[in-house]
């Protein structure tokens, strides 16, 4: 993957980045890390998709015999885990990495080496969880891993060990990246870019990072408890010792529901930036769009127990959680209406990216409305844990997140690689995906209403489910073909796609003011921003007449709408530190080496990789302890000793590698030579 991403021809070959294997292992450039995220996440998307295809083959007809109950439970657990933690979140992370510094006019993220560390933890964690397939011991407790089913007593194999350890590893990656992006967005915006001038995607990314840093510690605690129960015999979830299994459910869903917004808000952000470029209209109601992002995130922390109506929390709790859940429909509705208003009266170009945005608006509406239906506790008691729910959240996550991310891929591929994706193949990809998605997931509403529960590896004939399941399976096969078109498009366009130039879509934001792919240093001169849409101000000022501006050269930021001054907000530290007239908005078309423009960039280093490797080895080593415990129970004393020796070698070796590399990293300056 890395080598594919490295091949795009450069406008100035002599100034191209180094492209060897080691250059990718040691990169700290946010753009190359973003590219690594993109292709790794697309790979895991294909893997999770393959798991889904096997599931659909098994359920295509009654009494499916393709896979056993054991394998089926592993498949649906890994499909969910892979898509959530290894595909959609990292796809979003690819765009966070690539776009945040470009959109705010920065040369990199705040902590470039920490950024590399996040990526390596992610990819090694993903490999770790999937190694379980080799032992035929993939996690099989569902992505939600309810205790006590996931405790040793009921899941004695290593399956859940891979899951409980792997998720902790992946959490480290998300948390490190979250703090990195928050710091970047707060501190590194270009002069004049106050918060209400940030592109919508950066806003969505900003909000999501707060969700991540608040939600992931909660699941980490739940996972640490489970890990202690499994490896050290504690009783956090042992009901026989007086534990209440609802502890797991509360902790899991306090994370789990914000996680839904972690998955969907980046797609919302992408659509809000992609749509204006293709409709040639500013996003409608920018401040309301920003506030509804924040409101969705805020309310998202107060709805977790709507996943638990069936446990019987009592009428007060049920009512409150039902109410907060329905309230989320308001800010979400605001976003849908504003997107439609953005399209209304625009001069729309139906590019593939634009089609995916439109599809998000349509499909997410369906998913959102079915979501309101099970916000009501009595209605939910019928719908929960049936295929109706499977239909609902696939409309949200496939019809929402993936459509938005596909729109992002088509829109930003030329920025990332310098070449446009083929529109012809893209249209095939789009229509097959749109048709396949609806054919797969719409009939699931029906099978759910007819009483088909989730997570069953077989069903009897004659229950009215056969036809709907067959339709879903056919839809899934169409989706697979559609996805192959995407793969073909990427491979073909990397080689022979049309050259993109700076700004193939006529977009309004900073990332399009520099060459594609951007030079290592991003901006030779950091631009000064005077409105939300700086490029349109330069190229098509008519488009931004209704957008607030500050006038160039003003000491005070003046907000003007339609040429009339409407206020004087606090200009903020970024605006105060630079006199606006000195370095204004500009477009850069030439690519130089950093030395030519006198910019010092962080040195490449493999230390973050070794810290990540050491950490993953250390955190994965309890598997040997489990093996030792199994051998001990089996009365194999010698085998027990061998496994424990392996455990100590790996845990201490991993720790030594991690701590040693970390010291080495911290003692090395970010930039070696100071000119």
């Amino acid at each position: 993957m890395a080598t594919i991403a490295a091949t795009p021809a450069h406008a100035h070959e002599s100034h191209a980045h180094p492209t060897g294997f080691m250059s990718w292992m040691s990169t700290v450039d946010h753009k190359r890390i973003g590219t690594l995220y993109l292709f790794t996440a697309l790979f895991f998307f294909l893997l999770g998709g393959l798991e889904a295809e096997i599931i659909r083959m098994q359920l295509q007809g009654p009494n499916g015999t393709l896979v056993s109950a054991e394998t089926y439970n592993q498949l649906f657990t890994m499909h969910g885990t892979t898509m959530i933690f290894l595909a959609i979140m990292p796809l979003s992370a690819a765009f966070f990495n690539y776009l945040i510094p470009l959109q705010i006019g920065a040369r990199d993220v705040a902590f470039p080496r920490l950024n590399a560390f996040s990526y390596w933890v992610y990819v090694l964690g993903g490999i770790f969880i999937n190694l379980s397939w080799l032992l035929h011991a993939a996690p099989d407790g569902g992505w939600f891993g309810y205790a006590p089913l996931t405790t040793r007593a009921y899941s004695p194999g290593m399956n859940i060990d891979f899951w409980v350890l792997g998720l902790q590893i992946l959490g480290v990656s998300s948390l490190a990246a979250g703090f990195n992006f928050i710091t970047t967005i707060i501190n590194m915006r270009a002069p004049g870019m106050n918060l209400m001038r940030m592109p919508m995607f950066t806003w969505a990314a900003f909000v999501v990072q707060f969700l991540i840093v608040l939600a992931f510690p909660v699941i980490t605690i739940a996972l640490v408890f489970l890990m202690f129960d499994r490896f050290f015999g504690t009783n956090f979830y042992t009901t026989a010792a007086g534990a209440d299994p609802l502890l797991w459910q509360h902790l899991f869903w306090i994370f789990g529901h914000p996680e839904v917004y972690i998955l969907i808000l980046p797609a919302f952000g992408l659509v809000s930036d992609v749509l204006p470029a293709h409709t040639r209209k500013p996003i409608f109601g920018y401040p309301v769009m920003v506030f509804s992002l924040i409101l969705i995130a805020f309310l998202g922390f107060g709805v977790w127990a709507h996943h638990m109506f069936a446990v019987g929390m009592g009428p007060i709790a049920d009512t409150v959680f039902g109410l907060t859940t329905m309230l989320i429909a308001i800010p979400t509705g605001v976003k849908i209406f504003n997107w439609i208003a953005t399209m209304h009266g625009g001069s729309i170009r139906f590019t593939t990216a634009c089609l995916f945005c439109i599809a998000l608006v349509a499909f997410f509406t369906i998913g959102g409305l079915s979501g309101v239906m099970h916000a009501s506790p009595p209605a939910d008691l019928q719908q929960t844990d049936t295929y109706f729910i499977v239909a609902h959240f696939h409309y949200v996550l496939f019809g929402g997140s993936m459509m938005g991310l596909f729109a992002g891929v088509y829109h930003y591929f030329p920025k990332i690689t310098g070449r446009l994706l083929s529109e012809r193949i893209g249209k095939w990809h789009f229509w097959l995906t749109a048709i396949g998605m609806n054919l797969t997931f719409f009939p699931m509403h029906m099978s759910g209403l007819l009483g088909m529960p989730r997570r069953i590896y077989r069903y009897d004939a004659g229950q009215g489910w056969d036809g709907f399941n067959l339709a879903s399976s056919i839809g899934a096969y169409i989706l697979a073909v559609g996805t192959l078109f995407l793969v073909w498009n990427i491979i073909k366009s990397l080689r022979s796609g049309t050259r993109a130039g700076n700004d193939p879509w006529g977009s309004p934001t900073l990332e399009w003011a520099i060459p594609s792919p951007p030079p290592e240093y991003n901006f030779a001169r950091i631009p000064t921003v005077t409105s939300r849409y700086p490029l349109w101000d330069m190229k098509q000022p008519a488009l931004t007449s209704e957008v607030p501006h500050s006038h160039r050269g003003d000491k005070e930021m003046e907000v003007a709408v339609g040429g009339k001054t409407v206020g004087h907000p606090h200009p903020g530290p970024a605006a105060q530190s630079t006199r606006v007239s000195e370095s204004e908005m500009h477009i850069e078309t030439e690519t130089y080496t950093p030395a030519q423009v006198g910019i010092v960039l962080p040195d490449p280093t493999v230390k973050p990789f070794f810290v990540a490797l050491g950490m993953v080895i250390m955190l994965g080593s309890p598997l040997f302890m489990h093996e030792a415990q199994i051998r001990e129970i089996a009365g194999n004393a010698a085998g027990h000793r061998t496994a424990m020796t392996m455990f100590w070698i790996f845990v201490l070796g991993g720790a030594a590698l991690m701590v040693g590399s970390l010291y080495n990293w911290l003692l090395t300056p970010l930039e070696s030579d100071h000119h």
Partner: protein
Amino acid sequence: MMLLQAPHYAQQSMIDPAGTKAGAINDFWHFLIVTASIVTAIVFITLFIALAKRRRPADPEAPGEQRSLTRWVTGSVAVTLVIIVVFLFMDFRLGRAIATPPQRTPLRVNVIGHQWWWEFQYPDSATPGNWISTANELHIPVGRPVILRMSARDVIHSFWVPNLSGKKDLIPGHDTETWIEADSAGIYRGQCAEFCGLQHAKMALLVIAEPERQFEQWALGARGAALAPADSTAKAGEQVFLTGGCSVCHAIGGTMAGGTVGPNLTHFGSRLTIAAASLPNTKGNLGGWIVDPQRIKPGSFMPPNALEPDQLEALLAYLEGLK
């Protein structure tokens, strides 16, 4: 009576209610789906209108466009809010209506979840030894509320018979309660709705709702001890049961068999299905199940039993005679 085919039961469905609670939820659901369909249709139509009204890049924006769009968005949000308030109101009313059973003398049943079968006890006597204890088939009288007291022996399960009512989880160490009521006689299928491990898919149950008098008759028979073997074959079968491994896990009232790990088989012959409503209770199915349960339900806790053909024949005769 030996059943030769699958018992006929109603389509397992939440939109074909046969019980008080399922009916009330279904009415509300109809309101939801109609409203949601109208909203979806309006959103799609406005989306198509927005897409159809394309402006040429050179043309200026229509005057007053921003203001009319603002009005439209504000109006849409206001309508959304109104719909949500109506939803909430109806949701509260429904929630209150189905929270407690009607004020008629209820029947009480204990539901105990096991991996992967259901145990039902009718605690209608001070002595637990006199309770009816059965498995996977819940007999209830029509038109009388049934309060289900639920617990789980191992992991979390969820009791769900969609034609009668929504779900309620069975949580180890944390008893829960719900109630159901059937409006009309019939057999209603349900199944476990919370993923509970390997054979979650094959943890089904039947609710057999009968008129009060028939139910009382059933209860009378079910409370009694097992019928004595009718002939010498069945008598030999009883010996196979008691001296083989069977009685370690299974109980048969009136005999020495007192195992509590697996389902109580006192009136096994009158059950419609075996293996948690996975198969019709026929001699052939039962024979296959006893010899190799792992082929039918891999991971089931019932071990395979190597029996001589005549032993198996005798055991089957005995079990099918336990009406």
